[in-house]
Structures are given as structure tokens and as C-alpha cells.
């Protein structure tokens, strides 16, 4: 591996001295993720009624027995029969949210059913989100009334004061993190590697600077190792930028829910660090091999895209599984093992042996790919084909 360190230093210097690279791959991704996710979170919260707003309702012939219940939910304006048309117009023009019409003698007809079922009319404007929400609230209120009239049993009646959801904050947070983080982290790692590896290998081939390196006494293995180590560090930093962006925006994205990564121990973070480092090395080595085969950066990017799709598909699998696999063999499958190992740590289902197998497997695959990359650097057909 003679000469790997100067190559390693040069790759790092190439990156850290280029302001555009720093802004484009280190600062912008994290910043944009933070801004976009925060904006999305705020938007979602506004949509589902994050701000306190009492819906307005015009009501005709509101039974006295329902007045209190309606007033608790709506800002009620009672109107007479002669105001029906203007009330509908007000709903249409979004001046009020809904217009509810109770049939005459509604209360007595439901208390003493005669066979004819009274019909409550609720006018709303489906094009207005406030009106639709108010409509749903009114329907829910009246459905509850209807249920109470024929009540035989309750399920988890809030009036009982019991706490039936036995999950705690730790469980909820781990569920959210184990669903989201494997996918996000793998994608961030991959995009980080993708933004630098093709340029460093296929780009150097394309520009003719690789051949300049190959006529020096530095060994091909030294070039491969120096590049992969440097690109891995850069990829981790690129991924870290996106990770910080997502962690900062997470509370807003979760609509203010109390989601904190404080539930994880130092040991969990060490395990995560090991998984991330071994995964980054493997992914960088994979992209480097593909880039060495390509004649240009453009060609390398095209070849890497299917691998990106595979990573995304594998990452999504943990959204549909409960915890990580308990057996050891899934941790031998490259990429999938990284996804499941991250999942295991975040879902508190990690088995030390499985994590170790996953990390060692990644390092072994990386070593094999470095060997392959070295062989490719020696091949004149690959390095100098036109």
C-alpha cells in the first residue's frame, strides 16, 4: 500500500479547499433539509389545526338539550327558518363554516321513536378546509349522540380516567426513530458518497490526471486505499450535515411531539458509529469500483443510480417490520445488514453479536472491493479504454 497517505491527504485537501464543494455538499444539504422539513412540519400542523380556532356554525332549531354540547365545539349562531337561504350563502362564501338544520321536534322524535327517522341537514363547503373540518366535527358530535341513545357498553371510556395505552415516551420515540432513521441515514450516506466518489475516480480518469498518478512509484493498492479512506471521511461529513438538519427539524416535523434522541445511551451511539463507519466504507468502495469502470463522471453517475434504488428499497423494508431480525444471517447481506443494524439500535432490539457480524461483514466486503479496485487500476483495458 505504498503511497496511500499522500493520496489520502490530497483527496481531503481537494475537498476542503474547494469552497463550492464545501457549500454544495456540506452546508447546503443540512440547511435545506432543516428548512424544508421545518416548513413541512409547520404546514402540516397548520393543516391539522395546530392553531386554536373555534369553528363557526349557524344552527336552525337547535334542541335545548344539545345547546351545551354544540357550544362547546362551535361558535353557534342560532337562526330562524327565514334565514336559511342567507345561511347557505354564508357557508358558500366561507363567512361561516357550517349550517346545521334540525327538523322540528327533533328531540322528542328521537326520545320516542315512531318509525320515521329524523334527518339532520348539515350544509358545508368541501372546498374550504375549515368548513370540511367543522362538518366532520358536527357529524362526530351527532354520531356520539346517536351511539349514546343505544348504549350497551363502552370501550376505554375516557370518563373512567384509565390509561390504556401502556407505551411510554421511550417506546414511541424508538418506534418513530427505527422507522425513519435507517432509511434517512442510508440515503444520506449514499448521497454523500455519490457526490464525491465518481468525481474523484471517474473524473480523474476523464481528465487524464489519474494516469499522472499511475506513473509514480505509488502502488495501485495505495491509490485505492488512500482514495477510499478520504472519500469515506468526506461522505460521513456530507451525511452528518443532512443528519444534523433532520435532527434539528424533527421536533417541528413531528408537529411538536416530544421526540428526543436522549433516550439512547452512549453505548447505542457507539454501536451506531461503528455501523455507520463500516457502511460508509462499503458504500464508498462500491461506488468507487463502479466509477473506476466508467469512462466519465456522467457515465459513473448513470451506473450508480440503480444501486441507489436498491439502497432506498432495502431501507424502506424496516418501515414494515417490527424490530430487527433476531437471527444472524441477515447481517451478512451487504447494505441490508446496515439498514437492519441501524433499525436494531433505534428500536432497542440490537443483539451485540448480530451488530458485530454486520460490521465485520461490511469490512470484509470493503476489503474485497479494495482488492477489486486495485486490480481495476492495474487493468489497462479499464483505465485507458476509449
Amino acid at each position: 500500500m505504498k503511497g496511500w497517505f499522500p493520496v489520502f491527504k490530497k483527496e481531503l485537501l481537494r475537498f476542503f479547499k474547494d469552497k463550492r464543494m464545501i457549500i454544495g455538499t456540506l452546508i447546503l444539504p443540512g440547511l435545506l433539509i432543516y428548512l424544508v422539513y421545518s416548513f413541512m412540519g409547520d404546514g402540516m400542523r397548520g393543516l391539522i389545526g395546530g392553531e386554536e380556532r373555534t369553528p363557526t356554525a349557524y344552527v336552525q332549531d337547535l334542541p335545548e338539550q344539545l345547546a351545551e354540547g354544540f357550544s362547546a365545539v362551535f361558535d353557534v349562531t342560532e337562526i330562524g327558518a327565514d334565514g336559511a337561504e342567507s345561511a347557505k350563502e354564508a357557508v358558500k362564501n366561507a363567512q361561516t363554516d357550517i349550517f346545521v338544520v334540525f327538523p322540528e321536534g327533533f328531540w322528542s322524535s328521537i326520545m320516542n321513536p315512531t318509525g320515521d327517522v329524523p334527518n339532520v341537514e348539515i350544509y358545508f363547503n368541501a372546498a374550504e378546509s375549515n368548513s370540511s373540518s367543522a362538518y366532520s366535527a358536527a357529524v362526530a358530535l351527532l354520531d356520539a349522540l346517536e351511539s349514546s341513545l343505544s348504549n350497551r357498553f363502552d370501550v376505554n371510556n375516557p370518563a373512567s380516567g384509565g390509561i390504556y395505552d401502556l407505551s411510554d415516551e421511550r417506546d414511541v420515540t424508538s418506534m418513530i426513530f427505527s422507522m425513519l432513521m435507517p432509511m434517512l441515514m442510508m440515503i444520506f450516506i449514499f448521497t454523500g458518497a455519490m457526490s464525491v466518489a465518481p468525481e474523484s475516480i471517474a473524473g480523474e480518469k476523464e481528465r487524464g490526471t489519474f494516469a499522472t498518478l499511475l506513473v509514480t512509484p505509488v502502488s495501485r493498492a495505495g491509490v485505492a486505499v488512500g482514495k477510499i479512506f478520504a472519500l469515506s471521511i468526506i461522505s460521513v461529513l456530507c451525511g452528518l450535515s443532512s443528519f444534523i438538519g433532520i435532527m434539528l427539524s424533527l421536533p417541528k416535523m413531528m408537529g411538536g411531539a416530544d421526540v428526543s434522541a436522549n433516550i439512547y445511551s452512549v453505548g447505542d451511539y457507539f454501536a451506531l458509529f461503528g455501523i455507520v463507519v463500516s457502511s460508509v466504507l462499503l458504500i464508498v468502495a462500491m461506488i468507487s469500483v463502479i466509477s473506476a469502470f466508467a469512462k466519465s463522471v456522467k457515465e459513473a453517475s448513470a451506473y450508480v443510480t440503480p444501486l441507489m434504488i436498491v439502497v432506498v428499497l432495502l431501507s424502506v423494508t424496516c418501515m414494515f417490520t417490527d424490530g430487527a431480525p433476531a437471527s444472524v444471517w441477515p447481517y451478512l447481506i451487504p447494505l441490508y445488514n446496515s439498514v437492519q443494524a441501524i433499525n436494531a439500535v433505534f428500536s432497542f432490539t440490537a443483539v451485540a453479536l448480530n451488530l458485530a457480524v454486520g460490521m465485520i461483514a461490511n469490512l470484509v466486503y470493503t476489503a474485497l472491493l479494495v482488492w477489486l479496485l486495485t486490480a481495476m487500476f492495474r487493468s489497462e483495458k479499464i483505465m485507458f479504454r476509449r
Partner: protein
Amino acid sequence: MQEILDVRGLKKTFSLSAKQRRIERTDSRVKVALDGLSFKAYAGEVYGLLGPNGAGKTTCLRILSTLIKPDEGDAFVAGASAVKEEAKVREKIGFLTSELKLEDFFTPNYLFDFFSELHGMDEHARAARKAELFGKFGIDRFAEVKVADLSTGMKQKVSIAIAIVHDPDVIVFDEPTNGLDVITAKTVTDFLLEQKSLGKCVIVSTHIFSLVEKICDRVGVIIDGKLVSEGTLDEVRGGRSLEDKFFEIYSESRRAKGEEI
């Protein structure tokens, strides 16, 4: 004179893609680039390789620089085999060709340090060599300017300095004055003559007859991967101009293959 380069029976063929076969107008799936090429070069001489495009000059130089391997034969640089001892050969040879480029992002200063580190030079030796070469080529003036912002001539000077950063025994230059202005071209030819006087072996591949006549002690004419004529300049010229003699040799080789010129 001390023999320092020994090229023995180099053979090299390249497979041709369908596209390349169309361009070359041939049905053959392989192109013979070198067909048993042999020659020797000595310390303290400039050896010129002359030949038309596609004759195999660049392939020969790429084998000498260990970028590619021959199918048969070997080349020995100061006793080291280009096939079996690539790293040793790369320590003894300085190679410059238009296909070797410098990274635009870096400065000559950084690149010199980087390549000297790859050659295992310590800081003291590096500083002395840098002062010598940067002074000789006037690189000091633009040592901290990014390569991207340098002129063609400046880049060529930096490329030469980097190619010989390790003070190699054999200097191999492919078209060393191509695309250079007359002043830079003279700097390069003067430098090559100086290297010769220092006892280095300089191998030059070029199309420029005047350059060959000016700096080469011996010449080898390569056509279709074979050495068809070799000797001192006077021996090869046979009392005529080098250009006339070259075309005569070339015409004979074409006629021998039944081709029109």
C-alpha cells in the same frame, strides 16, 4: 557508453471495437501496435523515435512507463524489468506525454510537493530540487497560481518539473514541444540537451524533424510496430534531409504492403 534502456522484442495488440473497426476501415478484430520492437539507448544520449501516427511510438512509451504491459517481450530500465518490476522502473523513469494531465485545482507548488512525496523524497531533497527546477523553468513566478489559470506553456513547464521531480535516469517525453510557443519550446529543448550533458538518457517521440535533427544523437524509425531503420542521425539520413529520408522509408514500407501512398 553505459546501456541504460534495453527494449527487447516488444509485441502488443489491441482488440478493436466495432466502432474502432469502422474508423480504421478494417475487418480485423485486433490491431498490432508493436510487432517485435527492439532497441537500446545509452546514458548521455538523446534517442529519437520517429514514425507516422499509429506506428506504435506511444504504445512503446506507455510500456516503458509501465502504464500498460506488452503481450510479449520486455523493456529494462537501468536493469529493472517493466513487466516484473514496475515500481522500480517508475522510480528510474520520468515520463511526460500529452495524455498525462495535472489537476487544475492545485498549484504547481502543491503538486510538486505531492509528487515528490509519492517518490519518497524527504523535505530537504524536495526543497533543493524544487528550487532548482522552479528556477530553471521560471515556475517561481506562478508557483501559487492554480494550474487551471496557467497558460499552455506554463502548464508544460510544470508538467516537466513534476515528471523529473525524482531526478530519473531515463527521461521519456512524447511530443515535448507540441503546442508550445517558440520561447517555451526552446526552454524545453535546451533542458533536454542539458539533461543529456548530465548523463541522462532522453527518449523523445516526435513528428518534428527539425527537433530530431537539433537534439537527437540516434534515431529509430518505427513503422507498423517495427523498427525499420536505426542509427546515428547521419547514418539514418544517408546524406539527405531527415524528412526526405523518412518519407522514402515510409513509401517503401507502404509499397511492400501493397498499399498506395
